[in-house]
């Protein structure tokens, strides 16, 4: 919904707000698109795709979010600076995710450079590299704790 003459300096022709007005059928079409994608994501939940599940779910949700932001929130016709603010916040969320998960997903693994073992929950380096285990076979120990998903598991055996 950019005002007239945006990007051509500060001179607006008449200083009035010239908002982009979309048609009612257009908005309804966007809504139907959102409903379709919701149906897809619900349908997908009945099919197990393993690791691809989460990827597909996030991709569909992002498609829906893009529809809302682009058309309902008028970013398509808005001042590009507002788009920059929006995309910028998403980039920083990405940084937040990447750096946090890089830590939390790798606890319980041996750091080859430092030759230390990191305590699974606190993230502290274990003294002496590994918890004392009477020099037991290191293969079995690393086999038990190196599974990323198994780090800190307290699942009872049903």
């Amino acid at each position: 919904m950019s005002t007239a003459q945006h990007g051509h300096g500060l001179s607006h022709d008449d200083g009035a707000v010239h908002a982009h007005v979309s048609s009612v059928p257009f908005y309804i079409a966007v809504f139907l698109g959102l409903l379709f994608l919701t149906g897809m994501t619900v349908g997908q939940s009945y099919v197990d795709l393993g690791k691809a599940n989460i990827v597909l779910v996030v991709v569909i949700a992002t498609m829906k979010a893009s529809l809302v932001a682009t058309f309902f929130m008028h970013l398509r016709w808005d001042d590009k600076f507002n788009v920059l603010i929006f995309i910028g916040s998403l980039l920083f969320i990405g940084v937040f995710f990447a750096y946090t998960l890089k830590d939390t997903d790798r606890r319980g693994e041996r750091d080859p450079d430092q030759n230390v073992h990191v305590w699974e929950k606190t993230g502290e380096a274990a003294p002496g590299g590994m918890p004392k285990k009477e020099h037991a076979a290191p293969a079995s120990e690393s086999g038990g704790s190196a599974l990323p998903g198994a780090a800190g598991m307290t699942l009872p055996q049903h």
Partner: protein
Amino acid sequence: MSREAVTAAHVDSSPPHAGHGAHADAAHHGPVWLAHHFDTPAQQFDTAKIGMWVFLAQELLFFSGLFVAYGVYRSWYPEMFIAASRQLNKEMGATNTVVLLFSSLTVALAVRYSQVGNRKMTGRLILTTIGCACMFLVIKFFEYKHKFEGGLLPGRFYHPHLEHLVHGSPPLPDNTGSFFSIYFMMTGVHGIHVLIGIGVLIWVWIRNNRGEFSKEYFTPVDIVALYWHLVDLVWIYLFPLLYLI
């Protein structure tokens, strides 16, 4: 500059008589809704929009803390998340998704009718949006009620009653309370946003009824709609991540 001069300038630029949408008088530089520190309506409109987008960016960053917590715990305990998610009611979640998407449509249309100066339709569509928001909260209330009855509560309050659990669902690990901590925090904070959304929608509905908006000035409707869309945006991610694992 003397104090008198400042005061005089201030009084001069905010006349008490309200002739909306019109060029009030020669001393004032524009319509009453145009704040004296803006040169043109377009400048005021663009400023409001940038301010709102910065606020929305902050909202996203604020919610991202909860999403990262979700990511960390789901990555640590994938099986627990699958088992716990089965206890959520997919149908109710999907219904709420449709309700929120529809409310996003109605508020977008409210802005559209405000843009063309149709006060009646704007009012009706804002009311519809408020109705959808209330419906969302009612459905959420019944979901919460069911979780409380089942003892599916956050952290150390977690004490599942087997008779209340969904039939044929996988057994719940001992640490399932951490899923419900995340579930209640995410949906709870989102629910507070829905409540605030209802508040600001009522505010903008009253102002619309008073005839404060016109083709030339509809900024508050636009800004409140942006907030409402953000509430929808967050739910778009919450629904599949919590209910559809």
